[in-house]
């Protein structure tokens, strides 16, 4: 009892000190996060605003801060319909469509397929998994250069098969203006599908075995099991994988450069190549900025509704 009394006397200063400490503790996460928050605000969102601003100026080699209207956007809009011969911008956006769709679709399909195969409790999974995953550890430059050599008709696959005697074999997509973008898809899929497989594998391991057993008892075939139960349960993984792949697809720049150096007549350009080329090589900073803004808007238009619909269903 006496201890209670003494503590009551000392209570006021201690509580004061304690409250300072606890307030500090409350604030600690915010203090720790503040620098990175500030850096993100300035270097991501600040520069987004700056880029938008620049796209309405007549900036050439250096940024100019006088607003001169939307000429950069008008030029891009005009180029969007220059299909014959294709303007560089038209090539870039159609390539983005082809590359983005095929890259994401094939990676998801292949990743899921490999994950299901690896999930059959096979021997040596621990060896196989890293083999598929390893390409992700390479930079796009390495992937690009390796595939460039492999796909080059004079050095790689075609040459080798000719030497082995299959002289009618013909595979020159990387030199063909109409097919070069598909070689970018091949190299991109090779690199990313293993990683997507790992994501799906983690998802498959998280599925409750009881549900599977119940379904099997009810007489579901293996196909029905995956089609009706496993794949729907993997929906969050699909979302994560889609987000990872979508941003990899949109920021693909180095892969195109290393693999094709732009392709014959610039036929492998993606919008990011267009942006860099115009901003830094052609000294048309306003056009480059405008194309960057359009890229951002496209991403926002695709990702935001998707995220919104996915995240809204969670609390249900």
């Amino acid at each position: 009892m006496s201890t209670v009394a003494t503590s009551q006397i000392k209570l006021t200063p201690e509580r004061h000190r304690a409250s300072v400490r606890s307030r500090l503790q409350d604030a600690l996460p915010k203090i720790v996060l503040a620098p990175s928050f500030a850096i993100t605000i300035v270097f991501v969102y600040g520069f987004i605003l700056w880029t938008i601003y620049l796209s309405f100026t007549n900036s050439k080699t250096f940024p100019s801060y006088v607003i001169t209207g939307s000429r950069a956007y008008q030029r891009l809009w005009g180029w969007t319909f220059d299909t014959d011969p294709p303007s560089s911008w038209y090539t870039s956006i159609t390539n983005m469509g082809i590359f983005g769709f095929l890259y994401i679709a094939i990676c998801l399909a292949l990743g899921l397929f490999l994950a299901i195969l690896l999930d059959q409790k096979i021997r040596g999974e621990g060896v196989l998994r890293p083999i598929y995953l390893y390409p992700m550890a390479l930079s796009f430059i390495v992937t690009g250069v390796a595939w460039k050599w492999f796909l080059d008709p004079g050095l790689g696959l075609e040459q080798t098969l000719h030497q082995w005697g299959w002289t009618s074999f013909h595979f020159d997509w990387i030199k063909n203006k109409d097919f070069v973008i598909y070689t970018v898809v091949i190299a991109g899929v090779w690199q990313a599908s293993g990683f997507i497989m790992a994501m799906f594998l983690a998802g498959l391991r998280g599925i409750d075995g009881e549900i599977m057993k119940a379904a099997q008892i009810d007489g579901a075939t293996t196909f029905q099991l995956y089609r009706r139960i496993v794949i729907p349960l993997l929906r969050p993984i699909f979302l994560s994988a889609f987000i990872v792949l979508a941003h990899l697809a949109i920021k693909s720049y180095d892969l195109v450069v290393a693999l094709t150096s732009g392709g014959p007549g610039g036929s492998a350009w993606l919008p990011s190549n267009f942006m860099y080329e115009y901003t830094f090589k052609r000294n048309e900073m306003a056009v480059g900025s405008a194309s960057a803004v359009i890229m951002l808007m496209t991403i926002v238009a695709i990702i935001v509704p998707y995220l919104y619909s996915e995240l809204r269903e969670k609390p249900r």
Partner: protein
Amino acid sequence: MLRKLLIGTALASGLAFAAHAEDVKEVQMLHWWTSGGEAAALNVLKGDLAKEGYAWKDVPVAGGGGDAAMTALKAMVAAGNYPTASQMLGYTVLDYAAAGVMGDLTETAKKEGWDKSVPAALQKFSVYEGKWVAAPVNVHSVNWLWINKAVMDKIGGTEPKTFDDFVALLDKAKAAGVIPLALGGQNWQEATMFDSVVLSTGGPEFYKKAFNDLDDASLKSDTMKKSFDNLAKLVTYVDPNFSGRDWNLATAMVIKGDALVQVMGDWAKGEFHAAKKTPGTDFLCYRFPGTDGSVIYNSDMFGMFNVPDDRKAAQVALATATLSKSFQSAFNVVKGSVPARTDVPDTDFDACGKKGIADLKAANDGGTLFGSLAQGYGAPPAVANAYKDVVSKFVHGQIKTSDEAVTELVKAIDDAK
């Protein structure tokens, strides 16, 4: 702990101060000459400056290459942290001069007589509003043929004097089973070759009007159509695998005898030298058929920035050393180009170099020295790249006819102007 930290900081800043005071005796240089021959050539300049007591400091550039260096330079200039000098090309010098960040070397230029010795066409880029802002290092010329002599002897070819001769020669090579024309299918290589084709097809006056003055009537003329036809003709002589190939690999095809000829600037000579080949016995250098007497040039320059007064002495020393006759000779012998001043003796140069020097002097005196559009010396980068787009799309088939190519060329250049 805190005290240690303070002492450490004090020491570090003291050191920084000391380093700063020594800045005066240092040349900070931004460049992308890192490959074997180029680096060796630059060592000559480092040695010359060291003799005068100036240390050389490379400004590091991540990734190498001209584009990365120019991006780094933009950032440095935006931050107000100017290098003493930077390797620069053509219109970039003028862009930076217009932005008011270049220094003024007029005094040195007067003393050294650059006005008289540097070709007038080059001064268009090294002098801005009457002030010398850059020191040209060399003059490259683009309208060259590089021919493997063994192959040439085998097919019994002789120097082609006209475009038709050239086509006949390529036919001979084709009949002998050699790849006639080594070309790298990258837009700048295709456009560099097209520069020569236009000069050959239309003559000096036409080249100047179309590719330096960007005259609309010339750009859409029948002569330009004919030039595209001639380009299409040349492209039929390349191997099917040419697309995307680097220029030095194309040169290697000629060196090895897989191909007969490459149309390329005189930097290709550096590759022949590196492979220990001698002009006249192993390889031949001719002007592109029908362009003898004219020179399409590009030039490397050291742009001089407006550095603080305590660094100006080092800058003047660098500029003087760059344009000294001994360095101009020593450097360009290694680099494959010719000196940027016309009064340098050609004794140390090989046969091709001697011809290059004589041609440059003649072209300068005769008014037939023109900037290469493909290399960014004919028009600002926006126009030059629009031009490269059109040529490359024509070579690779996105643009199908020469009529269409001419229409696209006019449209693209007008749009970029």
